[in-house]
């Protein structure tokens, strides 16, 4: 058993913060269960309950934050005590956001109650279960200071992302088939979105707990870029942004790099404006054709870069890194501004690929 603080009042203060945080975690876990239950069973009473419980969680957020600030001001905690206070203060924010997402789910459920149900729940249940398991694992790892489960949390989060991508495509198909369900489908989409974002928040919490235990911050931004030998650029139509990126990458990255572009709904031909502005740099992409993702030899791809928000985030096996460079669609500009819009996007992409080139070179 580890020692306790000589000042027992201080020991009690820290323990109180821990207990409040654990209780808040339990409450939020319950809210996820209740809000998703309300959706699956169309239980509106439960949905209203979730909305009421959010007040409690908001109060927890403020009170735990106040306790943390007070203990910093009055005790000047050091070492693991300071890490504890910092980790809790940050995680409380994530818990509060998760509760807000539960409220959003409950509200969408109430709205859906007025519509005829659509049969679309197959994969939402396992997605929900994954999120609940993640929260449970994270809060348990806080209690036990055992972070061996943090790996499992990351795996679960990737599964949640994968479920989301899958469901998104299914839902899109359903909407194409039957336009009448759009208003229900967008609400279900929003519920899926909520679950996916909850997963991200839990991952944050698990990183804070890892910091509490190990004293080092997780590096989640730039992973080592070694072993990147193939890059795939994606945008929906594969006609402008991803085509320009492919052309620029072929020029700016080492010749040994495999470079592809594709889209989930490829256009008939490459946008002529893209061909013109690339030609201005002496890069000829006029012979290129928009392609489907399945046309690309995916075995050669290690990194996927998405260039627009609309593109579905694909989960491909063997991908070391996924990035998104969200850029506006230059083809959406007014006719008179189109040329300069394409030049603007081209130059942003060029800069980003130059950055990527030095990053890849630096890591070898």
């Amino acid at each position, binding site marked *: 058993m*580890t*020692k306790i603080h*000589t000042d027992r009042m201080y020991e009690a203060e820290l323990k109180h913060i821990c207990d409040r945080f654990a209780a808040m975690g339990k409450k939020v876990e319950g809210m996820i269960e209740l809000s998703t239950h309300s959706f699956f069973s169309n239980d509106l009473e439960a949905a209203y309950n979730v909305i009421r419980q959010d007040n409690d969680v908001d109060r927890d957020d403020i009170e735990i934050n106040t306790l943390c600030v007070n203990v910093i001001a009055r005790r*000047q905690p*050091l070492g693991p005590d300071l890490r504890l206070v910092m980790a809790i203060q940050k995680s409380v924010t994530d818990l509060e956001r998760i509760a807000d997402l539960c409220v959003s789910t409950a509200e969408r459920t109430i709205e859906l109650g007025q519509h005829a149900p659509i049969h679309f729940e197959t994969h939402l249940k396992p997605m929900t279960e994954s999120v609940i398991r993640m929260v449970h694992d994270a809060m348990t790892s806080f209690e036990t200071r055992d972070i061996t489960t943090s790996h499992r949390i990351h795996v679960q989060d990737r599964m949640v992302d994968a479920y989301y991508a899958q469901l998104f495509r299914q839902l899109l198909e359903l909407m194409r088939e039957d336009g009448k369900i759009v208003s229900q489908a967008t609400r279900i989409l929003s519920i899926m979105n909520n679950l996916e974002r909850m997963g991200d928040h839990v991952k944050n919490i698990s990183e804070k707990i890892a910091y509490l235990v190990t004293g080092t911050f997780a590096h989640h931004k730039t992973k080592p870029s070694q072993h990147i030998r193939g890059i795939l650029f994606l945008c929906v139509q594969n006609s402008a942004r991803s085509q320009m990126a492919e052309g620029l990458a072929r020029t700016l990255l080492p010749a040994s790099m495999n470079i592809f572009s594709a889209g989930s709904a490829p256009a008939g031909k490459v946008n002529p404006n893209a061909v013109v502005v690339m030609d201005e740099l002496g890069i000829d992409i006029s012979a290129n054709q928009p392609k489907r993702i399945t046309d690309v030899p995916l075995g050669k791809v290690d990194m996927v870069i998405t260039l627009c928000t609309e593109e579905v985030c694909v989960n491909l096996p063997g991908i070391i890194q996924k990035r998104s460079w969200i850029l506006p669609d230059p083809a959406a500009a007014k006719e008179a501004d189109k040329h300069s819009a394409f030049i603007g996007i081209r130059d942003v992409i060029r800069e980003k690929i130059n950055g990527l080139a030095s990053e890849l070179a630096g890591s070898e």
Partner: protein
Amino acid sequence: MKSLQTSMENNSVIREKNPSAIHISQFDAWYDRYHALKNINIDIPEKQVTAFIGPSGCGKSTLLRWMNRINDSIFKARAEGTLTIHGQDILSTKTDVVALRRRVGIVFQKPNPFPKSIFENIAFGIRMHLNVSKKEVGDIVEWSLYKAGLWDEVKDRLKESALSLSGGQQQRLCIARAMALAPEVLLMDEPCSALDPIATAKIEDLIHQLRERYTVVIVTHNMQQATRVSDYTAFMYLGEMIEFGTSDQMFMSPNDQRTEDYITGKFG
């Protein structure tokens, strides 16, 4: 303002680059038969502030006192091992202790000005150690008082007794007295424990300035003070050096359980 900026920039540079000013290895010390320090090994980096922390009786003051041989006067105090400052063997019987104390200044918990005028407190050591003209003595006195942040407070009363100053002013006078002799190392044994928070803040501000010229070693019971002023921290316990590292690391994620218990206040 400029010097403040420099000292903040210094804070962010890679500290490993500073060479060692004080080298201590396989160092043991006794008071008669009491084994006060056991196999101490540490390299104290040059022009940085190193804090020694640890519970009473852990040996941190003893170690500090050996660095300028103040312990010589204590009956049956002896030491073995290596203790060098910029390469010079401090423990050697051939060491000129008076010259050593010019190079290695010390400031104690209780300010100890001479019962003389403010001016004379500083001028005395200059005349004894440095071969300079009367005008230069005055210049050095002014420079040291200025550097210690005391000049504006005392410039019109230099002839008054140093004992008429407040505790915080007396302590800064003692630091000015040490600085006047251009030491390489400044040792501070609990320099603020008798001072109020404002006087403490002035001394701590001064310590930040001192690290530009001198290697500073400070012993303190006040953990928050160590976090505020030091670049490096050493934790001592029962005569042993338990852990030594950058203060950032020592106060956020120490490696040794005993260090962790001490800084978080788990002593029992």
